[in-house]
C-alpha cells in the first residue's frame, strides 16, 4: 500500500479514454462500478469538450455482483453498438472490474458484432495513465492497420507522406503543437497522411501504412505504435521531439532525411524570435539562473535542454514521474551533471526542489503549488494540468512558434532584469526593502519568504492550520548560531538567493566546526562556493 495524496497520473483506463476521446467513430465500453464516470468531467471540464467522451460504463453496483455482471457487460456492449454504430470498439475493465474477473474480450467476442472489437488488458494495480494510452493506441494500430504487405514505390512527383503520431485528448498543448508541426511539414514539402489518435477514425488507422515514415510527437503515447509500424511496414520514425529552436532545427533535418528532401531551404528561412531575444542584452541577467525541471519525460528532457542551451540557465534539477522513460531522463540529467529524480511522490519532488534551491521551477500543476509555497517563480511545462493550461489562444510548445511561446513562458515568471537590478540597488529604501509588498497590492508587508527558512525546516504554510504529511524525515540539523552582524549582512543579500546563501554558510560552518557564524564566515563561505 502506498499513501497518496496527489497523483501525477490517473489509472490506465484513463489513458484508454484519452485515446478513445481523441478519435472519431470509436466507442469504448468500460466494465466499471458506479462512480467511475467521474472521468468524463476531465474531458468536459478541463479540456472543455463539447460532447461526452465516447465511453459507455456498465456502472455495476453491489446488487449486481450477486447476479451476473458478465451479462450486464454484454448487454452494455450490445446497447452501445446499437446506439452509436461505431466503426470499431474497445472493451476493457477498470480496477474494480479487474478484480471480479469477467472477461470483457471474450464476452464481447461472443456477441459477434460486425465490427472489430478490441480487448484491452490494462493492469490497474501496476500501470498508469500514460502506459494505458500507449497500450491502447498500440492495440488499435495492431488490429486496424491492415496486414503487412509490401508498400508500392512512391510515384514520381508525389510529395513525401508521413503520419503524425501521439496527440490525444487531455494532452498538454497537443491541439496547437499539431497545427505547428503540420505547418512545418508543409513548408518542407511533406504531406500528412493520418494524424492519430487525435481526430482519426478506425478507418484512418487502416491507412497508416500508406505513409513513408512516422513523426512521433509524444513518445509516451506513440512510441510503441511507431515501433510496431516500423516492424510491420518498414516505416522509420522520428526520434527528435521539436521542443526549442535547436531541437526543432534537428527535427527539420531528421524529417527531411526521412523524406529524402533537402532541409537547407527551410533552415535558411525564418524561424523563431527566441535566438535574438535570448541574445539581446536584456536577457543577460538570465545567465546561470538556477532552474529545476520536472514533468513527463518528453517535456522535461526537451525543456531542460532548451533552458540550458537557448536561455543560458543552469539546470539544477531534472526529473520525471514517468518510470517508463526513466532511462532517457537519467541520460539527459547526466549531461547537465546532475542526478535525475524519478518519482511519482510529490513530497519527494518538494524535498528535491527545496534542496536544490532553484530560482525558477518548471513543472506540472503540482510543482506550481510547491513553488508557490516556497516562494519561487514557476511555469507549467507538462501535464497534469488544470483548466487554465488548455488556453483559448494559440499556444504550442513545439516548433518555432512553440519556441517563442516557451521563451515567454520561461522568462515571465522571473523578475525583469532591470527590476532585479533596481531592487538590488535600492534595497534599503523604504519603498523597496524586502518586507514591503508590491505597490499595486497596497504595499502591505508580506510574510517572510519561504526561501529564508533554514534548510530542513518546513516553510510556514500561510493558509491551512494543519501540518503537511511528510513521508520522509526532515532532518533538522543544529547549525552554529549567527552573530548579529552576520545575520544583518545576510539580510542584505537579495531574498531570492538568501536561502541558498544561508544554507551554504551553515554547511561551511558545520564542516569546519565553527562555534559562531561571523561576518567573516559569511564571506569565506561565499568565496568558497562562488556561484
Amino acid at each position, binding site marked *: 500500500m502506498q499513501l*497518496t495524496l496527489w497523483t501525477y497520473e490517473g489509472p490506465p483506463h484513463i489513458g484508454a479514454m484519452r485515446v478513445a476521446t481523441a478519435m472519431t467513430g470509436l466507442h469504448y465500453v468500460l466494465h466499471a462500478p458506479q462512480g467511475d464516470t467521474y472521468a*468524463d468531467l476531465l474531458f*468536459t471540464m478541463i479540456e472543455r469538450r463539447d460532447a461526452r467522451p465516447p465511453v459507455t*460504463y456498465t456502472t455495476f453496483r453491489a446488487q449486481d455482483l450477486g447476479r451476473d455482471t458478465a451479462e450486464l457487460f454484454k*448487454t452494455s456492449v450490445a446497447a452501445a453498438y446499437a446506439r452509436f454504430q461505431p466503426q470499431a470498439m474497445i472493451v476493457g475493465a477498470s480496477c474494480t472490474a479487474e478484480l471480479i474477473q469477467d472477461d470483457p474480450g471474450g464476452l464481447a467476442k461472443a456477441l459477434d458484432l460486425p465490427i472489430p472489437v478490441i480487448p484491452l488488458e490494462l493492469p490497474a494495480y501496476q500501470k498508469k495513465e500514460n502506459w494505458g494510452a500507449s497500450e491502447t493506441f498500440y492495440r488499435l494500430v495492431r488490429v486496424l492497420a491492415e496486414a503487412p504487405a509490401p508498400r508500392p514505390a512512391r510515384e514520381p512527383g508525389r510529395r513525401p507522406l508521413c503520419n503524425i503520431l501521439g496527440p490525444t485528448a487531455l494532452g498538454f498543448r497537443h491541439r496547437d503543437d499539431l497545427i505547428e508541426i503540420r505547418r512545418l511539414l508543409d513548408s518542407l514539402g511533406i504531406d500528412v497522411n493520418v494524424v492519430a489518435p487525435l481526430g482519426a477514425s478506425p478507418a484512418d488507422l487502416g491507412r497508416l501504412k500508406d505513409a513513408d515514415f512516422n513523426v512521433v510527437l509524444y513518445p509516451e503515447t506513440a512510441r510503441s505504435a511507431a515501433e510496431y509500424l516500423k516492424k510491420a511496414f518498414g516505416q522509420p520514425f522520428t526520434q527528435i521531439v521539436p521542443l526549442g529552436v535547436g531541437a526543432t532545427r534537428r527535427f527539420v533535418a531528421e524529417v527531411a532525411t526521412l523524406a529524402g528532401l533537402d532541409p537547407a531551404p527551410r533552415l535558411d528561412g525564418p524561424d523563431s524570435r527566441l535566438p535574438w531575444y535570448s541574445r539581446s542584452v536584456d536577457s543577460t541577467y538570465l545567465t546561470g539562473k538556477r532552474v529545476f525541471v520536472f514533468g513527463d519525460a518528453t517535456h522535461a528532457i526537451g525543456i531542460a535542454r532548451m533552458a540550458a542551451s537557448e536561455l543560458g540557465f543552469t539546470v539544477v534539477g531534472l526529473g520525471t514521474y514517468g518510470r517508463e522513460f526513466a532511462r532517457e531522463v537519467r541520460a539527459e540529467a547526466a549531461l547537465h551533471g546532475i542526478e535525475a529524480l524519478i518519482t511519482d511522490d510529490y513530497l519527494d519532488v518538494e524535498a528535491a526542489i527545496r534542496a536544490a534551491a532553484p530560482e525558477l521551477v518548471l513543472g506540472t500543476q503540482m510543482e506550481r503549488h510547491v513553488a508557490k509555497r516556497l516562494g519561487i517563480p514557476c511555469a507549467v511545462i507538462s501535464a497534469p494540468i488544470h483548466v487554465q493550461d488548455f488556453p483559448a489562444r494559440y499556444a504550442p510548445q513545439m516548433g518555432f512558434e512553440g519556441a517563442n511561446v516557451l521563451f515567454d513562458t520561461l522568462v515571465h515568471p522571473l523578475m525583469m532584469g532591470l527590476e532585479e537590478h533596481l531592487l538590488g540597488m535600492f534595497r534599503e529604501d523604504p519603498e523597496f526593502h524586502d518586507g514591503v509588498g508590491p505597490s499595486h497590492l497596497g504595499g502591505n508587508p508580506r510574510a517572510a519568504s519561504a526561501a529564508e527558512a533554514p534548510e530542513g525546516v518546513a516553510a510556514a504554510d500561510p493558509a491551512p492550520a494543519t501540518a503537511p*504529511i*511528510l513521508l520522509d524525515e526532515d532532518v533538522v540539523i543544529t547549525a552554529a548560531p549567527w552573530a548579529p552582524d552576520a545575520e544583518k549582512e545576510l539580510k542584505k543579500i537579495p531574498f531570492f538567493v538568501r536561502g541558498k546563501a544561508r544554507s551554504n554558510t551553515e554547511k561551511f560552518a558545520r564542516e569546519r566546526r565553527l562555534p559562531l557564524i561571523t561576518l567573516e564566515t559569511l564571506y569565506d563561505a561565499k568565496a568558497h562556493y562562488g556561484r
Partner: protein
Amino acid sequence: MNAPVPPPTACGGIDFHQEHGQRAVFCGLTGIVWLHRKIQDAFFLVVGSRTCAHLIQSAAGVMIFAEPRFATAIIDERDLAGIADANEELDRVVTRLIERRPDIKLLFLVGSCPSEVIKLDLSRAAQRLSGRLAPVRVLNYSGSGIETTFTQGEDACLAALVPGLPREPAEAAPSLLIVGALADVVEDQFLRIFSALGIADVRFLPARRAGAMPAIGRNTRYLLAQPFLADTARALDERGARRLAAAFPLGAEGTTGWLQAAAEAFGVDDTTFAAATAAGRARAETALAPHREKLGGKRVFFFPDSQLEVPLARFLARELGANLVEVGTPYLHRAHLAAEIEMLPAGTRVTEGQSLDDQMDRCRAARPDLTVCGLGLANPLEAEGLSTKWSIELLFTPVQGYEQAGDLAELFARPLRRRALLEV
C-alpha cells in the same frame, strides 16, 4: 441496461418511474471533500485504488493543494497477490500517518469498490487500530460506488458515528439534534432562530470537532437537514432518538415547515413562532422576488445526482413558479421525503435511478429551459443549446435557511441570465 421501464405507479400524486441502466453519478467517496471541512480534526483515509485517488483529486479541484485531511492508501499488486498482508500494510500506513499528523483525533477508514470486492475487513481494522492508537478514534464506512451514490457517502459516515455517540441519561430534558453537514454560517443562523423559539438545547451531527459529538438518548428529537440520510436516521432510531417529520429547509417555505416541525415537538406557541420567523421570511421574500420573474414559467429538468432534487424541484415550482419536466433522483426515500412529495405539483414526473442515454434522449426531446446535471453532462448539453446548472455547486454552497433562499434561486437564475447576456 435499457430494460423496459416498469409501468408508472401512483405515489402521492406524482408520476413515479424507476429506471435501470448506465448511471452518471459520483460515488460516496466524494462526500469526503466537504465532510473533512466540517469535522476539523478528522482525517479520511480511503483504502482503494489509483482510480479512487484520481477521483478525489478531480472532485476536490484546487482544494487538494491545501494539505487537506484526506488521502488514499493505494492497494497495489503485492496486496492483491497476498505477498503483503493487507492488514499489516494498512496498520503501517495508518501508524505513519498518525505520527505525522498529531492534530488528528478521529480517523475514518473509507472503503472503496476494490476494498469491498476483495473483502478487506475495514471494521476489524478500525477496531484494532482504535485500540492501538488511542486516544485517536478510528472508524470505518464505505464510500464505494457499488454501494453508495455521491451524498450517500455522508450518510454512511454519519451512520458510522452514531453508535459511538455519548448516551444521555433517560431523564435528560428533551434536546433537538440537527442531522446533516451544514455550512457553519447556516448552523449559526439556525441556532439563533431556535434560541428565539425558546429551544435551548440544539446540537449538530456532525459536530465541528471529534471530541464534541452530540449525546443522544430517548428524549432526543432529530430533524434531518439533508434528504440523503437514511442509514443515519435508522441508526439514530435504534438508539431511541425520534425523527421529526418535515420538509427540508430549502427555500422560505421549506425552512418554515422544517422549523415548524421542531416548534410543534417542543410546544412553541404560534405567536412565538411567528415572531421568531417573521424577519427571516420577509427577507427571503424580498430576495426571491426578482428571481421569480426570471424563473417563472421556465421548464426545468433534473438529472439524478444528490437526492436533493425533489426538495429543489419543490422550491423551484412553488416559490419561483417553474414548471418541472422531469425530476431525476438516484434514490427516493418515500418516508423522509413524504412532506416534499406532497408539495410537488400533482403529476410531476419523478424518476428514481437512471439509464443515462435514454434520459438524455428525453431531455433533448423536451428541450427544457434549464437542465440541472453533473459536470460530465453540462458542457455537452450546453453545446446542444440547452442551458444547464451544474449540480455539485448545490452541495458546496450554503443554500439552506431563509438567508440563503435568494442565493439558492440565484444559482438557478444565473445560467439563464448569462445566456441572455451573451451576444456571441
